[in-house]
């Protein structure tokens, strides 16, 4: 009897503990449902605030060299005034060629001859791109200086493109860069300490020549590119240095450190090494061509002294980071170095920022020599330092943990929105009483129409695919002024699909639209959080463009009239397809980068971004 009693007691206490657990869980669930909106608002706030804080000098840390083998600025440099005179003589010849309007073949032939005169085997590679009806051709000259000390299984590339990166390859010639390269060839050959082959490349055009050369070097084929195979070859390339020196002299050395095609960054050690080398050679360094003027154009005199400095640094950092986002988000390479990245070659451009002085061939030559010595020291691929970072200033950077959460938090807020919409769609009536957790919720499960919504989303992505084909077609390339027509057609096509959908599923469109909202938010959240790793700038832009706009779209109520619904749809149409109305030059540039350099920004926008925004528009439209 006593045994039975104790057993009963045991069961009762067990049940009691279960009851407490279940009540607690329900209370938590009810609390979460009640405060879901507040939670989302808080998360959005944290995310956007974090993005604003990113340029702050209090975030981030100073740079340091992680790879011990690099030993930057530890070698004596021998580049002297004789080599500067040498470079000057090459410059004279190049200027003569420029003034004589020499053809591309002629120039390449000249460069090849010069390399051959130095006793370095050289060759020419001709290439042709076919872009619709346009043809783009040129000739790269390159030379391979075999390592006196090793078997030639590894190589360093030094390159200079014919057209400088100034104004994004607008046509200024990089004559001094090429002269430096030629003088360096003559100079480096005198030393026997090279453990790796040195490959000199003078590429034609701005990005196109180097892309063709790298393609051929790595034995890849591209359908619209006809590039001659390379007669001379060398080993695996780990690092590369690109020299860009368009002006007469320069005041600062700008390091175009990062942005490769599709937002890939080189290992930070390379940029840090060049920073140390330039600093120790007495050349001031800056990122991009941003020269920090002592008197900032913005005046913060009205602020207290302690804050003034911080705000000034903040604006400088913000300027650098915005420039970074401008390149990375669109997947644009910020210079010729960006083309190397897709072949796992870490590369940077050193850019002489045009000024009246005081630096010239002497400084750039010494920096290049010392950099090559550092690269020569490498025993394995650069891997120790960071690949995921944001450089706020030449000597300060943000680790992945300092910036990544901002976009992830917004993505999480978006995801919560999606889950909330999903729960809402599953219940016929919402919570009535907020005081007690047991009685308020009416347990009327509702059927969720999933198949229709998935079909609708698939059709939106098909619309995106069609839009991509249209943009890529030769019709669009020849009539890019017709982009308004394309915009109108896409917008109307979505309206048509919405109309068909409404007529097919006559009843309960409210839950359709709730499910659509839920799926759309979840998809957007997944896209944002995954893009953060691949291309943070793009993810941040997506978080800004998609986060709140997608969360605030109102599911269509049965009573909403047609004009109201269309009116709600218009902003989303503008947000989603409005880029077609941008200046056609921007769109053309993006298309060129897709066709020539396989930068996937255009297909991403057409097939992922636009459909997601249009689906948000459909939420209010169906």
């Amino acid at each position, binding site marked *: 009897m006593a045994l039975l009693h104790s057993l009963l007691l045991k069961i009762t206490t067990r049940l009691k503990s279960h009851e407490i657990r279940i009540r607690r869980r329900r209370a938590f669930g009810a609390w979460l449902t009640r405060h879901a909106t507040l939670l989302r608002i808080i998360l959005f706030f944290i995310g956007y605030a974090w993005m604003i804080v990113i340029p702050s000098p209090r975030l981030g840390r100073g740079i340091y060299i992680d790879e011990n083998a690099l030993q930057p600025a530890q070698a004596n440099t021998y580049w002297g005034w004789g080599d500067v005179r040498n470079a000057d003589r090459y410059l004279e010849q190049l200027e003569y060629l420029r003034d004589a309007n020499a053809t591309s073949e002629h120039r390449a032939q000249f460069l090849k001859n010069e390399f051959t005169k130095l006793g370095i085997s050289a060759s020419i590679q001709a290439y042709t791109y076919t872009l619709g009806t346009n043809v783009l051709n040129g000739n790269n000259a390159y030379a391979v200086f075999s390592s006196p000390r090793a078997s030639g299984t590894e190589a360093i590339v030094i390159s200079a493109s014919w057209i400088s990166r100034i104004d994004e390859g607008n046509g200024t010639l990089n004559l001094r860069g090429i002269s430096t390269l030629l003088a360096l060839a003559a100079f480096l050959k005198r030393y026997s300490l090279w453990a790796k082959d040195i490959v000199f490349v003078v590429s034609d055009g701005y990005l196109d020549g180097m892309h063709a050369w790298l393609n051929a070097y790595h034995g890849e084929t591209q359908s619209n590119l006809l590039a001659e195979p390379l007669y001379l070859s060398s080993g695996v390339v780990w690092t590369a240095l690109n020299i860009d020196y368009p002006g007469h002299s320069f005041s600062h050395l700008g390091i175009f450190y990062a942005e490769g095609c599709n937002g890939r960054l080189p290992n930070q050690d390379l940029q840090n090494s060049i920073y140390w080398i330039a600093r120790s050679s007495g050349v001031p360094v800056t990122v991009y061509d941003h020269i920090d003027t002592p008197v900032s154009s913005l005046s913060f005199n009205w602020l207290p002294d302690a804050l003034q400095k911080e705000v000034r640094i903040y604006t400088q950092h913000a300027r650098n980071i915005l420039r970074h986002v401008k390149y990375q988000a669109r997947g644009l390479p910020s210079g010729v170095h960006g083309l190397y990245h897709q072949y*796992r070659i870490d590369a940077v451009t050193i850019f002489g920022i045009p000024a009246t002085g005081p630096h010239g061939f002497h400084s750039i030559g010494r920096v290049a020599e010392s950099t090559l010595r550092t690269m020569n020291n490498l025993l394995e*691929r650069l891997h120790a330092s960071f690949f995921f970072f944001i450089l706020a200033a030449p000597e300060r950077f943000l680790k992945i943990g300092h910036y990544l959460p901002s976009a992830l938090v917004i993505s999480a807020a978006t995801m919560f929105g999606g889950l909330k919409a999903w729960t809402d769609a599953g219940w016929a009536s919402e919570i009535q009483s907020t005081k007690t957790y047991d009685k308020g919720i009416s347990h009327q499960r509702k059927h969720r129409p999933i198949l229709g919504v998935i079909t609708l989303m698939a059709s939106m992505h098909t619309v995106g695919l069609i839009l991509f084909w249209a943009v890529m077609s030769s019709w669009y390339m020849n009539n890019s002024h017709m982009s308004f027509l394309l915009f109108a057609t896409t917008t109307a096509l979505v309206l048509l699909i919405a109309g068909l959908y409404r007529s097919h599923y006559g009843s309960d469109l409210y839950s359709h639209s709730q499910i659509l909202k*839920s799926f759309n938010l979840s998809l957007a959240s997944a896209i944002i959080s995954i893009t953060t790793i691949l291309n943070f700038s793009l993810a941040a832009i997506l978080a800004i463009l998609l986060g709140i706009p997608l969360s605030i779209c109102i599911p269509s109520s049965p009573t909403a009239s047609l004009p109201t619904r269309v009116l709600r749809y218009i902003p989303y149409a503008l947000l989603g397809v409005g880029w077609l109305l941008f200046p056609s030059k921007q769109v053309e540039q993006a298309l060129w980068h897709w066709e020539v350099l396989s930068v996937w920004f255009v297909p991403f926008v057409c097939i992922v971004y636009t459909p997601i925004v249009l689906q948000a528009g459909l939420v209010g439209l169906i």
Partner: protein
Amino acid sequence: MTFSLKTHSSWPQDSVSRLTFPIIAGIRIALSLANVTKSLRSNPLLSSPLDSFLNLQEGVYLFKHAEDPYSGGSFHHSPLFLSIFTTLLPSSQYSPLIWAFCDIAGALALVSIWRARQNTSTSSWGDLITIAYILNPYVILPSLAMSTSSLENMLILITLKFASQGRQPPTLLFLAFLVQVSLSYLLLILPIFVLVNMGPSSQLAKPHGSTVPIRPIASMFGKFLVYSLCLTFASTIIANGWSWTSQTWGASLLLPDLTPNPGLWWYFFTEMFDHFRPFFLMVFSVHLLIYVFPVFLKFRYDPLYASFILIGILGIFKPYPTLASPGLFISMIVIFPEIYAYLRHPVVTVLLYLHASLLMPLFHGLWLQQGTGNANFFYASTLVFACANGAALIDCIWAGLRLAIGPDSEEYVIIQE
């Protein structure tokens, strides 16, 4: 019952549904002839060393030139595949069609299983099953990559089909084939034997403590051994020796090739010191066996469901999985519509799958193509994938058991099943 067969209302009517199957099959065949799929063949997510088509071709080449393909250590396919792809189906530009037809056969088998389970002959649900199997990305991609794991999937489905129809000899034959080509599927023999004897009809809603017929199962096991021995003997004749056993069955136990795959074994054994290897190989292999009896005991009244759960477990914990192994589990969910109303977190599972599907190729690319990531990135993404598979599996186990208690009630809460 309130499960969502309501979707029928919006699903195409019968006149259309007669067209659905040919359209889906046509799409599948057309895709197999597309040239772009060649680039998929070397994708490690879609084919592991044990089932890659490229390895198979290499083995066939060696075999034709009178070399022992098993001596090199890179060929791990069964001698049965070796003989089939040397004689009956030599490699040609039409080889992808074989995989297309196998997918279609698999889909038809799945529809037959559904029909046997529901005891109906026509139903428009069959179209949905075809779509869910043939167009499931986890099924179609490995199949386009011509991974032999797709052929294993077809063998499983055909075995289950014959078992559901109660046809003992073909069940045993196909099961013996299946175990020949992939040893891990030994796990399925118990539920499949019971399935032959008890039938596939859904018993989830009204579980009963039926006794498992021991004697017929024992005799089936005997026959299965005979079939297996015959096939083993045939393999030995084909391979001209016993070297194949260590390279095929042995490979799934000893894990000689650590090429990354979406499973959980490779990273663990890359990181491990060599002297711990035998112990953990034993632990990992035996760990798979642990599940068989609990799952079978819990679902002994519905052996088809037990096989389904075990297929899900294999999809997570197999030594060399590809996307096809979890893919089969996901597609099979469609033949159990009665559990849908009781799934607890289907959206979370779907979102996990979405993230895993995007992360795995991305992180693999970051590690091995772009060079900015490392092995930990890809391993982390396979963990997300394992979580997704686990979430799906646990939810299916819960729903399968929960179904017996009936719909939710206002006053009661289920604490334990």
